[in-house]
């Protein structure tokens, strides 16, 4: 699919071994390939563990089921957060970074031994965190707000994991330097690599924030520091906790572009716009710490407004641009592919049976409509008081991180398995349905938690009937219904998760070998790839009526939902 290794000269002195991918023409170095495999496998293992814990959490919050006892519920919820939000996502992102640097640029991975050290540090940290949580004396939630204290192993494990991840990110940058100096590509880096660089720059900032606050907190747990200021902790911790979600956004937007390119032959509408949108992430997404601090005492309104809006919503602008350019690029490519009738033939005749495309497109839609809109509303200074710390908050971030990032990463895995592991998908029928089952479940989880949150249901609570409370409070019956539907959706998402893991694991172990001569992909890539390469990246004069309809619909939903919430707010008790 590419000839970017044209003119590349193997550099003497490095003993890197390469193979050329027969499906894409990409030049793949063996160390990069092995490390991508290792990180991807670790990611899936922690997805499995964290997903199982998530199912336990959802089934406990379903009042009619209430699966786990209270102490196990809070323990499981702590583990769920760490395993999926940190370990699954970051292991997979390291795999993406190695892919976007070494594989896409056809370069060798910098310092493979250090990359293994990074992997071992991350794995050790992740295992130690699970040990600390399962011991039962670190039930402090993923956020671990002081003065509630976990065992020292909890903080130490996160520090070790962060150091490992930081090392891997540095190796990503080093790989870019090697690719540049060994001239494995010409001109600017490709858009997907550009997006990965965005993710990596944000990762450095957020991992540093994590270290800045977790190291003193660890010393505090050892008794070497007398106390941690609760407000300062939150300001810096969320510099990691929320800003790190922008690594995910950059990474999964890159995956959207990558899948659209590989499956449909899509080019960005214009390179300039898509890159500027990524660039806005680098400039403004770090301000996201404020999103969890709008209901705190002691922070000025000016600070809250500037930070929570990412400086006048310029980072939101970045996401809204991708929200146009990604479906726009798909529409343009599909029209070139011959699906040119009417407004929506490009969409109705899209490869919906290909799990990579189906997962990617559902991720795009749900990230925008569910995660994106709710995020802006939740992050509005005054509106936040309506939902702060209610279950609306997990509703929002399951819309971004599960329906958005996780679904996109799963979709990406359907390309990684054949291209990197060189095994075809073993059970195409299960794979075909998997994104729909998981996506619908994830979408349901987000919507029903948000619904319960608007009714005031608190997050991280074992029992909303509050039977042991001094002063009884009865939540409306609709809140119970929402939590029940959340449980049903969680079961569906879990089934989708099991389908994913079974297909991936058995494809890797026993899928049809693609290294043999004449092997064909069950879910084919776009065959015009090679021709597209020699042309310039941007589309020429595309007509995008379907995309215009979609973004108009999005914009109307956004504006309506925004003002509905202001109406709710204006009816609250008066406070200032």
């Amino acid at each position: 699919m590419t000839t970017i290794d044209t003119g590349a000269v193997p550099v003497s002195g490095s003993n890197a071994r390469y193979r050329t991918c027969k499906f894409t023409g990409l030049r793949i170095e063996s160390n990069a390939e092995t490390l991508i495999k290792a990180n991807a496998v670790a990611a899936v293992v922690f997805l499995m563990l964290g997903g199982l814990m998530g199912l336990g959490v959802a089934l406990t919050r379903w009042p009619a089921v209430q699966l786990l006892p209270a102490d196990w519920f809070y323990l499981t919820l702590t583990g769920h957060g760490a395993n999926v939000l940190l370990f699954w996502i970051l292991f997979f992102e390291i795999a993406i970074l190695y892919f976007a640097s070494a594989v896409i640029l056809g370069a060798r991975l910098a310092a493979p031994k250090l990359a293994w050290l990074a992997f071992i540090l991350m794995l050790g940290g992740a295992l130690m965190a699970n040990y600390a949580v399962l011991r039962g004396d670190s039930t402090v939630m993923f956020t671990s707000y002081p003065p509630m204290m976990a065992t020292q192993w909890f903080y130490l494990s996160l520090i070790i994991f962060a150091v490992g991840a930081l090392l891997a990110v540095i190796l990503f940058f080093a790989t870019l330097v090697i690719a540049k100096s060994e001239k494995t590509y010409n001109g600017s880096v490709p858009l997907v690599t550009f997006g990965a660089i965005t993710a990596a720059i944000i990762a450095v900032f957020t991992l540093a924030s994590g270290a800045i606050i977790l190291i003193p907190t660890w010393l505090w747990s050892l008794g070497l520091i007398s106390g941690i200021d609760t407000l300062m902790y939150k300001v810096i911790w969320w510099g990691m906790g929320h800003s790190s979600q922008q690594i995910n956004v950059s990474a999964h937007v890159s995956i959207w572009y990558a899948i659209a390119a590989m499956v449909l032959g899509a080019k960005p509408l214009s390179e300039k716009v898509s890159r500027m949108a990524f660039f806005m992430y680098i400039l403004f997404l770090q301000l996201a710490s404020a999103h969890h601090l709008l209901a705190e005492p002691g922070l000025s309104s000016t600070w809250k407004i500037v930070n929570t809006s990412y400086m006048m919503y310029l980072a939101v602008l970045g996401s809204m641009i991708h929200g146009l350019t990604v479906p726009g690029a798909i529409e343009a490519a599909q029209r070139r592919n011959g699906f040119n009738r009417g407004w929506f033939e490009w969409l109705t005749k899209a490869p919906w049976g290909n799990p990579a495309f189906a997962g990617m497109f559902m991720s795009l839609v749900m990230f925008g409509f569910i995660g994106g809109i709710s995020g802006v509303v939740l992050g509005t200074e005054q509106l936040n008081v309506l939902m702060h710390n209610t279950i609306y908050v997990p509703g929002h971030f399951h819309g971004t991180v599960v329906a958005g990032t996780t679904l996109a990463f799963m979709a990406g895995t359907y390309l990684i398995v054949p291209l990197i592991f060189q095994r075809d998908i073993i059970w195409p029928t299960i794979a075909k349905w998997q994104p729909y089952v998981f996506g619908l479940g994830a979408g349901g989880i987000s919507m029903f938690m948000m619904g319960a949150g608007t009714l005031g249901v608190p997050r991280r609570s074992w029992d909303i009937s509050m039977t042991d409370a001094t002063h009884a409070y009865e939540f409306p019956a609709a809140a119970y219904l929402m939590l029940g539907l959340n449980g049903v959706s969680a079961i569906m998402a879990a089934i989708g998760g099991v389908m994913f893991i079974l297909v991936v694991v058995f494809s890797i172990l026993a899928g049809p070998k693609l290294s043999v001569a004449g092997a064909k992909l069950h879910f084919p890539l776009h065959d015009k790839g090679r021709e597209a390469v020699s042309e310039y990246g941007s589309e020429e004069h595309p007509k995008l009526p379907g995309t215009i309809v979609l973004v108009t619909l999005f914009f109307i939903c956004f504006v309506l939902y925004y003002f509905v919430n202001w109406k709710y707010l204006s009816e609250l008790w008066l406070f200032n």
Partner: protein
Amino acid sequence: MAITPPSNRLWYKEPIQAIELGWIILAFLWGLFMFFFMIAWHFIGDQNLSTETYRVTTDAYEARVEAFAEEFQKKDAEGNLVEEEGVPVVAPPEGGDVYILARLWEFWPVVELKKGVAYRIHLSSVDWQHGFSLQPTNINLSVHPGYEHVFTLTPTESGPFGIVCNEFCGIGHHSMTGRIRVVE
């Protein structure tokens, strides 16, 4: 192809598609509107969270709340002190200061407010972080130990209201509640 480099080095000098430019302008203006609407609400709205905050030791705050409860505890017709579930019911003077503390696992004491009257509410924790969630009105605030948050609150409805903790605070978190009564 997104995964291949543009042949032109100067990607940032390329023209922009018209549809993209239109969308960028629309999204940018919408962002500006949302940004300035937050500022505008400080002038036109009645729901803006106060930033008045004081550092306070947990012991001093606990003593202050206990003194407040003792001073203004409600008495019934026979002069007996009123309690609800063993917790004193405190009726502060109209427009006065109201002290509420959060601790494992209750909001203390029960306060009785008059509808339509503005009170200065003081809120702090004496142990861990807690979440003040007033239900069913759905006003949600964070409560920190060591920080005394002061805001003006005017109830616009009457009846019993629940305070539910919505910040995880240990094994009793789900049974941490409080009560605000609003009378006509």
